């Protein structure tokens, strides 16, 4: 069983254990509190879950049911019974009794004024007089008359503003806890953006804001200009993209990013969960987090950007007059023992003694740059070879099917009798762009 399979099996066992744990009692996860202290475990305003709200909750007209908010929840206690649940809208000065049902379930209907902040608290009391901690669910509540779609637009513009002002803490405060990509990778990528890009300017044109249930999607086009800190070069791009928002706590938070990324350029493979179709093939700005180099690339059809999907590796190819060894970029596969005469059935190239032959349809050219600093394959200047190979050479490949690769010859060891061991390193870009 591999390491990952064992870990996945452990996770499944943990979930099954949790599911089988009896619900009303023996709540093993309630450690840290006494058996007779009650706790409010569920709390909702209509369909809005506020159990984890901390500072503020903002509701819109659409969250109301004919102008009414129905508070629903559950209070539990390990030993004893829940006898009373009360709520306050003025910070605890006046308490209102909620309707208590079975097993600690409670409800209460209320009408709140628009655009007015209420200091909400709730507490449960057992039949023996033990009270829950009011601070556990204490926050401000407000119903806003603002159009949620307009609020989403403003949240998007605030996010852009924080990004252009390079304020990472402000930016991350506007990111949802339920961000669909890798939130930690987003923060790392934002950090890299601010380290390696300067003078970030973005002008968006919002096409529309679409809503579904609690999710909102912003469709926009943008003009962007940045300056590369490493090279001093000014880069520009224009494309279309989408971002998703959800309502959380006191406002709308970023929940999803599509490629081409408007934020976190170096983390496309971890952050973007989809591609905006109309931007496929568009020139976009990319950022290599390893070298800090900003460049322009081409947006591919799948998430992963134009540089993050690059496959790299190394290999040693045995080359003689016959048999030959073929090599394939996609997967880094080697095919030893090939007949050196005539066409070869597999691979993108074949080494024969100290010559390199290309598969029919492939082309290559010798570059003057080093393997590590070559980040883009040329657009033209390719030939079909064959090529004499020696250590230190770097080739760019234009492959059949429109893909590109970079090949570095790291060593050529003469084994005598016309046989060689050829050491290679390679970079392969499967998305069809010339960027690495």
């Amino acid at each position, binding site marked *: 069983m591999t390491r990952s399979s064992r870990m996945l099996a452990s996770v499944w066992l943990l979930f099954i254990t949790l599911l089988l744990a009896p619900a*009303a009692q023996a709540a093993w996860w*309630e450690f*840290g509190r006494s058996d007779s202290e009650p706790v409010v475990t569920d709390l909702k305003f209509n369909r809005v879950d506020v159990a984890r709200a901390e500072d503020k909750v903002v509701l819109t007209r659409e969250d109301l049911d004919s102008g009414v908010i129905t508070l629903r929840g559950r209070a539990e206690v390990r030993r004893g019974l829940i006898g009373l649940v009360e709520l306050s809208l003025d910070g605890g000065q006046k308490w209102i009794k909620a309707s208590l049902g079975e097993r600690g379930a409670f409800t209460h209907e209320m009408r709140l004024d628009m655009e007015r902040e209420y200091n909400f608290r709730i507490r449960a009391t057992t039949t023996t007089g033990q009270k829950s901690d009011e601070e556990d669910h204490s926050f401000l509540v407000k119903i806003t008359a603002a159009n949620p779609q307009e609020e989403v637009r403003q949240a998007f513009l605030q996010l852009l503003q924080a990004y252009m002002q390079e304020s990472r803490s402000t930016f991350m405060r506007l990111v949802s806890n339920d961000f669909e990509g890798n939130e930690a990778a987003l923060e790392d990528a934002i950090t890299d953006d601010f380290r390696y890009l*300067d003078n970030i300017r973005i002008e968006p044109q919002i096409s*529309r804001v679409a809503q579904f249930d609690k999710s909102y999607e912003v469709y926009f086009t943008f003009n962007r200009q940045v300056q590369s800190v490493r090279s001093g070069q000014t880069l520009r791009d224009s494309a279309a993209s989408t971002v998703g928002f959800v309502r959380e706590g006191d406002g709308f938070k970023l929940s999803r990013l599509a490629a081409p990324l408007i934020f976190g350029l170096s983390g496309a493979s971890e952050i973007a969960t989809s591609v905006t179709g109309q931007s496929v093939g568009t020139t976009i700005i990319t950022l290599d987090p390893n070298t800090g180099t900003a460049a322009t690339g081409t947006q591919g059809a799948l998430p992963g950007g134009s540089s993050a999907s690059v496959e790299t590796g*190394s290999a040693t190819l045995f080359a003689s007059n016959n048999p030959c060894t073929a090599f394939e970029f996609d997967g880094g596969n080697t095919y030893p023992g090939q007949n050196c005469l005539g066409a070869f059935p597999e691979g993108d190239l074949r080494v024969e003694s100290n010559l390199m032959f290309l598969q029919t349809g492939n082309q290559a050219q010798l570059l003057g740059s080093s393997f590590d600093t070559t980040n883009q394959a040329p657009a033209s200047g390719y030939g079909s070879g064959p090529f004499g190979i020696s250590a230190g050479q770097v080739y760019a490949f234009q492959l059949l099917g429109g893909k590109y690769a970079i090949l570095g010859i790291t060593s050529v060891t003469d084994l005598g009798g016309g046989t060689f061991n050829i050491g290679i390193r390679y970079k392969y870009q499967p998305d069809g762009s010339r960027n690495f």
Partner: protein
Amino acid sequence: MFAYSVSRALPFSLLTLGLVCLSARADELNVSNRTDLLSQNVSGPGKASSFYDSGIHVLHETDVRWTGMAFDGKWNSLFNSSLRYTDSNQFDPERLSLQKLEWRLFDAHTQLNLGDYFANLSPYSMTKGIKGLAFQRNLGDDQNYVRAFYGSFDGQWAFLYKDPTREPMNTLGGGVRLQRAGEKFRLGLNLAEAHDQDGDRYASFPAYAQILPAVDWEYRESALVVSGEHAYSDTDEISAVGVAAVNKTGSAHKLTLRAALKNLNLDGHAERVAPDFISRGGGATADRLRYYLKADYKLDRNWRLFAIYDDYEDNLDNQKTATTEVTTWETGFKRARAFSRRHMNIALSWRNKQKEVTDGSSDQTTNRIKFKINDRVAEHYDWYAEIEQILDEDHLTASDADSKLFDLGLNYRRRLQNNWDIRADLNIGRQETGTLNVSGTDISDRIRLGLTADKGNGTVFGASLERNTADLVAALADNHHNRASLYWQSKPAWIKDGSMKLEYADYIHTFTQNAANDYREKIVKLSLQWNFQKEAKK
């Protein structure tokens, strides 16, 4: 071709339907317009670097929203459209474009959509805006339903009715979802389909055709929520025109745990997405195995501790020559009411991230310490300071790079007796960036001052000054940028339910060692926004 012809006729059919509906009894008609008049002047030898379009330009956007009853009052109807006109490619390559077109017909149990529709199945299978037809029938309540839709994935209406050459791909697709839900559970069954249409526009990129079934579920018990999704994709990929299709199949699984305990909040998820899992309408990071757990423990009112573990790797099918593994640990605390000050908060965290490639081509570690403090002073002043140190290490080359970030902010807010709300913000920042295997440090400095005065009746004055300087390792790359802006906003009575805004901005970009790149941008913008609302009668 038939489907494509139908899709191109769709917007005009919708407009006709909209006009027909307008003749019926209506409750409300809303029309809003935003007009921007801009004068943009770019000068200097480096002006080609600017994305502003020099000259005088206009941008109009008009939204029309109509709601009412249809078909003898048996159905509710909603019609939404948005048109844009501009004379500048800076805003839109189309002169006149349709941004949104939507018609919705619904009653308590059934909904029909025509036009723009947000197609939502499950995250892996389909969450995408389409242009097409959708149907939903509730089975009891709105948490139990069956939903179906089909349409074009085109992002712009222009791609449908004009078929411009800049359209990258023509994709059609649809899906079906059945959801059943109760007080403690939710179960969704989904089936999505998508295919790219033959053409020559994808000469450099693959074209896809796929079927994607998925199951999503959720179980809630007291303070515990467990959810998951399981999907399978069967995709034909055509790498280039004339190349035979290659079939790729893959699965994706995600489990999520959320527990809100008394003092401890837990968030965790595990995810495995196969390398060949492709979703044209949904979202997933392919070739990824990830485990994530965050624990947030509240010691008391003032102290909070947290810890995060995040581990992910690729190369799940050993299809690559090496595997990339990234492991991140982070821990820290937050202290509210520090030093007995009601508004003082302190946060400190340490993060360690290790990235390793199993063929030995990369082995890097990053350590980051972040400190933040904020407080309120003398009723009207808030301030914050943030310091961060990042140490990157490359174990292969035995090199390291040190980066530091400093950020200081001071905010002032006061409401005067005549109801003016005055705000001032000062922000000072410095960034010293080191890069692995590169000698030298790039230094960026930033200072920004912003002022606003808000009367509260829609009248706002604002001004800002900003200066950014960069002293870079790269040759001849040092630069500084100065920005100044002023604006005035008002809601005059003669613009019913509207507003106007006048802005002036001046940006000067100076490249200290290469004056041939210098340029300056001056923008004057007048924005007018008005709204019209009327109850339309038959």
